[in-house]
């Protein structure tokens, strides 16, 4: 069963559809599936809904799909770094559903785990709770949140083997595993596909069962906020 494709466009061939819900990994610009996002831009797929913690910046990440008006709706926790996003949102062209960050991550994980709903304290008493079922457990109030099942997941990992076993690196892991889990189809991009058997089975972060298609490519990995300290005495 061949999972490895030669390019992002090839890996998305036959998978993209106007109006679909796409779950994307990444936090800020860290660990985002940049090659697959570019391929979606090239494909011109429209009216997309993205479940993604952030919306990229103007010229990188999901931002490049905002420029081309391919996104209809975002399900996100924080969208502050994108002027074009704000312009489209304020003009009513773009729909926005805010989810608390942990609720979004858990909704993805739940959807991937066959859990259609779960209860959380997060957001009780806030606008987030409006219209949601409330329930008491042991004297405390919780709200129900729904699992997300996406039509497609796009994620970015560090290494993979040809069966789709994935290894992430440092904080670039973030939303990628839950996003991968919740997709009916998951396409992953990695920096390196290593020979089968060279990943230690105890250190695989996401088993290949979640990954249907796979590409290797060169990543820009842009840094959003470069912060440094001075060497003492330097």
């Amino acid at each position, binding site marked *: 069963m061949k999972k490895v494709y030669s390019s992002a466009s090839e890996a998305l061939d036959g998978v993209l559809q106007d109006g679909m819900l796409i779950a994307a990994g990444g*936090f*800020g*610009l*860290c*660990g985002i599936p940049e090659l697959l996002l570019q391929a979606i831009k090239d494909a011109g797929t429209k009216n997309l809904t993205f479940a993604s*913690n952030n919306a990229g910046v103007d010229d990188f990440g999901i931002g490049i799909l905002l420029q081309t008006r391919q996104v209809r709706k975002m399900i*996100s*926790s*924080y*969208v*502050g*770094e994108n002027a074009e996003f*704000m312009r489209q949102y304020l003009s009513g062209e773009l729909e926005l559903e*805010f989810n*608390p*960050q*942990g*609720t979004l*991550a*858990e909704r*993805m*994980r739940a959807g991937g785990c066959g859990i259609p709903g779960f209860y*959380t*304290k*997060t*957001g*009780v*008493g*806030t*606008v*987030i709770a409006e219209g949601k079922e409330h329930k008491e457990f042991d004297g405390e109030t919780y709200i129900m949140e729904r699992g997300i099942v996406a039509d497609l997941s796009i994620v970015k990992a*560090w290494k993979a083997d040809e069966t789709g076993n994935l290894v*992430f*690196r*440092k*904080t*670039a*892991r*973030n*939303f*990628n*595993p*839950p996003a991968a889990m919740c997709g009916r189809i998951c396409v992953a991009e990695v920096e390196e596909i290593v020979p089968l058997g060279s990943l230690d089975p105890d250190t695989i*972060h996401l088993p290949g069962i979640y990954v249907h298609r796979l590409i290797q490519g060169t990543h820009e*990995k*842009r*840094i*959003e*906020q*470069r*912060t*440094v*300290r*001075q*060497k003492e005495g330097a």
Partner: protein
Amino acid sequence: MPWDRNQMAARAAEELEDGMYVNLGIGIPTLVANYVGEKDITLQSENGMLGMGPFPFEGEEDPDLINAGKQTITELRRTSYFDSAQSFGMIRGGKIAAAILGAMEVAENGDLANWMIPGKLVKGMGGAMDLVAGVGRVIVVMDHTNKHGDSKVLKECTLPLTGKGVVDRIITNLGVLDVVEGGLKIVETAEGVSEEEMRAATQAKIV
């Protein structure tokens, strides 16, 4: 004299005890890390890391290693990485002993508003709602009044809430208040600040 930003951060650092896992918000809370001294504190970054280290030296920035404010950081010998579902699992599950956060408004019942001003650009709550709902203790660090001189310590929040009844302690430039039954209790005032001055700057009921 009221505390400055660093004095507020230093006072907030006194809240932390050996062995605690702590989440620090952006702004003044970030400075708290400079004042923990010899205490064994582990910082969580909610994008998927325990054991957050300082900023990297120039040239050693790693795009795969950022904090929740998207800044480049470093790891420590104790560091572990995990995904966002696990990260907020430990937040929601009460495993983080304390969060130290900034605020726009706090009310006498512990309500907290720090994520949106209606009519202005709304960037989102990020992880703040999960943090205040889940961590063991929520400590707010903020100026006691806004730039117009109006109290930020209120009877009721006027802005949309981040969490309802979630704040345990408020550290401002004027001193320290606890959320207790029936209102707020003055724990201490900054040196040279009288209780009367604090009361005058506080709209909330002080009991």
